[in-house]
């Protein structure tokens, strides 16, 4: 009996090894089979010459494999492609349009040519990884076809702030699944470049979101069935929180696995700060609370730089493109910010100086990029290579725990995604 079990175990192990050693199914198998089915339906069993040309972005390295697949699938359906002298011909063209790949077969029998075609889902291009000192990496949190102004992971799920709605997603096996959608109910017209922020509530399970002229608060009751959120919105011209101390994160379904420092390792002294937002435009007015010893110009972004327990100047990106620092009661220009965009956020990575400023920029590329900088004095020093994003960065904010930043990105086809950006200490 033991021998039988032993043989069974060995056979099972061998089968398992064989299965794991088998190549993964090619992405071309399904379309090759579908096209072969169509061709065989036209031609019937017999011989034909097969030619393949590539008018698509499929790499020429992949053509032999596609050819082999097509030959196999045709053979399985009684069509042999070895007949060089055959009067029948199959001309396969690998083509594509802006939405999908298209494989087209022209089946020639004598003077008659018949055409058939199958759609092929486009593949995804591999992401390039930055290769230098401190490395930024991104992880897609959610992809949606609706604009996202800000997002927050909570114990009760992912909350996204859209121009006119709060959308709450719950955990699901396949990722995030929409649970609740609440209209914000603005009575005023939205500006063309609307902005919003979202922060965790004091107990960490709810949120407070500010969108042009409105504030919404949400609370989550974990004892209730999934999706039991209460969200209330009201008109408000109150200032928005632009700087707040890092808080412990309570819910974190998509936390990155990068080697990171944490904000709690630092003896930081972050002063909460709020700023009034110009609801008819896309910037903060320059009026902040608590007030500073200098008048600030209107600005797009602000972050607090933690240099030491006693030095935490405020960095602002004003609407005239200047980046300035408020330190020792004075507003001072920061050098080395020529490539900076309007959006930046503090990242308490624990790498290098402990914290960096992650900045958006576009350069010559069609898509934006993010790059980390350190500000040891009044000059911004690059601390990482640029991290290419898959579109335009429309918003950038620090995660509540300070260990990562989030970016809202608008892709080429008006697809939006929220990315978590973390730092790898090399």
């Amino acid at each position, binding site marked *: 009996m033991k021998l039988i079990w032993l043989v069974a175990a060995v056979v099972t192990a061998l089968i398992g090894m064989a299965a794991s050693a088998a190549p993964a199914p090619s992405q071309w198998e399904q379309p090759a089979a579908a096209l072969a089915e169509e061709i065989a339906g036209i031609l019937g069993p017999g011989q034909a010459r097969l030619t393949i040309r590539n*008018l698509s972005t499929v790499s020429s390295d992949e053509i032999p494999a596609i050819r082999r697949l097509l030959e196999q699938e045709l053979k399985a359906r009684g069509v042999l492609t070895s007949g060089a002298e055959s009067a029948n011909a199959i001309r396969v*063209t690998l*083509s*594509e*349009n*802006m*939405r*999908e*790949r*298209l494989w*087209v077969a*022209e089946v020639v029998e004598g003077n008659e040519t018949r*055409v*058939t*075609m199958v*759609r092929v889902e486009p593949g995804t291009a591999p992401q390039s990884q930055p290769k230098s000192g401190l490395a930024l990496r991104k992880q897609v949190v959610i992809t949606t076809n609706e604009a996202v102004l800000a997002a927050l992971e909570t114990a009760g799920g992912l909350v996204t702030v859209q121009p006119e709605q709060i959308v709450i997603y719950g955990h699901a096996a396949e990722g995030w699944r929409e649970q609740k959608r609440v209209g914000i109910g603005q009575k005023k*017209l*939205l*500006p*063309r*470049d*609307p902005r919003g922020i979202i922060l965790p509530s004091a107990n960490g399970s709810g949120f407070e979101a500010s969108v042009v002229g409105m504030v919404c608060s949400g609370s989550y009751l974990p004892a209730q069935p999934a999706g039991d959120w209460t969200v209330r919105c009201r008109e408000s011209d109150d200032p928005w929180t632009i700087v707040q101390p890092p808080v412990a994160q309570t819910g974190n379904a998509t936390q990155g696995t990068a080697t990171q420092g944490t904000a709690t390792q630092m003896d930081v002294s972050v002063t909460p700060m709020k700023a009034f937002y110009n609801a*008819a*435009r*896309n*910037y903060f007015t320059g009026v902040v609370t608590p007030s500073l010893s200098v008048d600030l110009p209107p600005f*797009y972004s602000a972050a607090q730089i933690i240099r030491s327990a006693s030095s935490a100047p405020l960095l602002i990106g004003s*609407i005239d*493109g200047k980046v300035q620092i408020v330190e020792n009661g004075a507003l001072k220009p920061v050098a080395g910010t*020529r*490539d*900076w*965009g*309007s*959006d930046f956020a503090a990242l308490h990575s624990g790498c290098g100086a402990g914290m960096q400023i992650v900045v*958006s*920029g*576009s*350069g*010559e590329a*069609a898509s*934006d990029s993010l790059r980390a900088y350190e500000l040891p004095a009044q000059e911004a020093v690059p601390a990482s290579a640029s991290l290419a994003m898959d579109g*335009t*960065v429309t918003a950038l904010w620090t995660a509540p725990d300070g260990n990562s930043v989030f970016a809202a990105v608008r892709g*080429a*086809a*008006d697809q939006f995604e929220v990315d978590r950006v973390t730092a790898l200490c090399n």
Partner: protein
Amino acid sequence: MLALPATARTRPHYGGTLRVEIEGEPWQRPGGLARRMVLDGLAVMNADGTPRPALALDWKSENDNHRWQFRLRPGVHFHDGSPLTSPSVVASLNAVCGTNCPWTAIHAVGSSVVFTSDSPMPNLPELLAADKYLVALTVASDGTTPAGVVGTGPFQVTGFMNGVLTLTANDSSWQGRPFADAVEAHVHRSIRDQWLDLSVGRADLVEVPAEQLRQAQQQRLTIMTSAPVTLLALTVSDSGALGNPNLRAAIALAVDRSALYNVIFQKQGEVTASLLPAALTGYSFLFPTERDLNKAHELRGGLTPPPLTLAAEGGPAMQLAAQRIALNLREAGFNVQVVNGVAAQHADLALRQLPLESNQPQAALESMLRGAGLAAPVLEQTPAGLYRIERDFLESHTLIPLLDLPRAYAVGGRIRDLHLSPDGTPQLSAASLEDAP
């Protein structure tokens, strides 16, 4: 292809006046520069060829696409202050679509607009996103009849004097106020003058005709080029001398597309023999583009048709192209005279630039076929089905596709975040000025 100066991404600035110059009419339909700045449609197309709500908040189809209900966005007003209502939308659409519309009837029902048709209308949202169906006020609040220039769009007309159309930001735009305070459009400016003004900083955006793209590149202008949005095509009468389908087929085979592409249009755009561009379908290579003079002679079968007239719509490049085509046809045994473009309606052959009305293939094909006088909706949703429709239509040789052409503009260094719409028009409402106050 966007080639703007390499600067860091900044949020758009509010303020300033955008100065644009055009050769033609700002209200020309389709694609007039002012149209999408001043007027909105019920829907608008995304870059990926899907429609999204505009003046309509949402829509639903019933009865197997024979009935569509578009619910209007509340709180939208025309530039004269009158509210957008379902009767005003119905009046606008009736004014622009008297015959050969995608629908049989259109009604205002509460705050919705309802379209009904004897045939299914599977592509109605995409069709309604086209330039043709932009909504304009037909009766102003003071009882007068505006000239189709009062809309709900991000800019409103505030003046037209000395060849300058002035548009001012609509603070109440439902899409949000545009970033620029105003747009000044200098109309009827020659391309040469436009480029000169751009070079000395008097203009922010000027036109670059497809045939002058290479020249603009040589002059190192910063150029934005759309995907192909115009089909250069030869329309062929199917009556009179050309009632014989073999003669029409011979004409199709006699035209030398590569000469038009290489010489007249300076290798811009794409040679084509299909109605829809390759980027939209992926199958256009199935329509052969090569000239075959021998077969053209063979199809003509020794017949010597009476002299044919060929008219060309458009500027010098179109006239040159017509001359070249006439030469091609003479080589195939046809006697062709090029006549004034005004006579295009009565000419045997007409060289035309047909706009691609949608970046969704079904809607684009349906619009193209409606333009050619065919009223049947495109029900096919697969590439193979669309190919069959194109093939069947083109076999009549009443329309011979020649080139797919892009729209292009040269821009100055002040403009930020400028993009082109799927139809190739610049989205000036989303653009901003670098040096805005």
